[in-house]
């Protein structure tokens, strides 16, 4: 048994909240720069430039990338040989609170979803998974609600064709439009149950953005029907929608499509889409 103190978790969560909100993910920034160099629409280029400049100002001035510092979603991978000394849930929420306070982030969480009321920093949404080993992995993904509001789930028939699933995902992107701050990163969860597919779609946003492979080359792994092939095809079809940055046209509608899958039931095929705005923020650490 390896002992990790709740205080250590609290401090780590606090740091991750600040890191995620102030420093744009390097893979996201790289993809934005690539999009900027390939974009031909003048207005789209101007907006992409502002987005890239924004990340630089945030980093330099220590100001949040976006005023919507999100609902903090915390992913835990707890090694089964880890013993946590103290209250884990309270450590996470205390960490979020101190990180958001220290980073001058926004209090956007209201206690009662029906009665509403004054916003606070917490509670976070916590997803915990048990894994082998004696490590604890923490990831914080502050999710803004301009894009979260565009999330969708559909329970397909088990006999559904792949083209139906693609159409559903494309419709979700069209419906997100300008409101969700394109260019997007599209998280897709396929399989499991209704709730698990939604979780996978969110978790998919943690995966590294690879960007498009050079024209004309199809990596060997991307054979027909595989996840990498589906990701590549969807990205290309989404970018033909010409929604563009801020929904004002251009060929940069999405920076990446990330898919996570899980086994499912013989009677169903759940598909969930979770869209991220261009300010895809997350940070992680292994303790």
């Amino acid at each position, binding site marked *: 048994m390896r002992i990790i103190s709740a205080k250590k978790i609290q401090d780590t969560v606090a740091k991750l909240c600040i890191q995620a909100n102030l420093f744009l993910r390097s893979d996201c920034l790289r993809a934005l720069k690539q999009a900027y160099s390939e974009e031909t629409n003048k*207005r789209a280029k101007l*907006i992409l430039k*502002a*987005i890239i*400049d*924004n*990340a630089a*100002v*945030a980093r330099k*001035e*220590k*100001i*949040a*990338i*976006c*005023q*919507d*510092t999100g609902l903090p979603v915390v992913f835990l991978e707890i090694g089964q040989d880890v013993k946590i000394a103290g209250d884990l849930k309270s450590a996470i929420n205390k960490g979020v609170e101190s990180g958001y*306070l220290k980073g*001058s*982030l*926004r*209090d*956007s969480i209201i206690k009662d979803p029906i009665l*509403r009321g*004054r*916003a606070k920093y917490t509670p976070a949404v916590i997803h915990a998974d048990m894994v082998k080993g004696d490590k604890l992995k923490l990831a914080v993904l502050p999710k*803004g609600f*301009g894009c979260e*509001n565009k999330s969708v789930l559909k329970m397909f028939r088990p006999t559904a064709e792949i083209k139906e699933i693609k159409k559903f995902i494309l419709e979700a992107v069209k419906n997100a*439009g*300008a*409101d969700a*701050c394109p260019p997007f990163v599209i998280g897709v969860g396929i399989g499991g149950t209704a709730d698990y597919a939604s979780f996978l779609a969110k978790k998919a946003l943690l995966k590294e953005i690879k960007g498009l492979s050079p024209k004309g080359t199809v990596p060997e792994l991307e054979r027909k029907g595989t996840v990498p092939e589906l990701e590549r095809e969807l990205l290309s079809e989404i970018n033909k929608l010409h929604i*563009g940055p*801020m*929904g*004002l*046209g251009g060929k940069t509608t999405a920076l990446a499509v990330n898919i996570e899958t899980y086994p499912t039931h013989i009677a169903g095929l759940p598909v969930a889409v979770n869209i991220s*705005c*261009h*300010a895809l923020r997350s940070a992680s650490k292994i303790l």
Partner: protein
Amino acid sequence: MKNLKVADTFLLSGVIYTARDQAHKRLAAAIKQGKKLPIDLRGAIIYYCGPTKTPKGKIIGSCGPTTSSRMDEFTPVLLKAGLSAMIGKGSRSKEVRAAIKKYKAVYFLTFAGCGALLSQYVKKAEPVAYRDLGPEAIYKLKVRDFPLIVGIDARGNNIYKEAST
């Protein structure tokens, strides 16, 4: 401002007021009940924005636009009361477009998801109403060269229609 055309870019210097969901709900209710408003809407510009906390030594925190369509149900009432322009992100309803045309107002877009960058154009910020709403309070902002794109002009022309054709 009335002469601006859809898709024009524009640098705004002057006073704007932040207001988002809850402030709109209160303003619209106050207008309907004939109560005195906490800010003078006549000729005013509203920015759909709920900034972060202000970091130490800064004028304001991150302050980008929020989704405008959530304010659609309240906007015609505010325009009737004299509001002259709005700043936000995304498209507006048919009713809002018609009201913009009727009252010769303007709907501007600004760089979405660029709250850090936009904070650099804010020279002064103070909460002036509904302080209990925290980030949703109404702030009076003095801006210089704040970057805007005309989304819907005073004749009702819409940038999103133009961009999709």
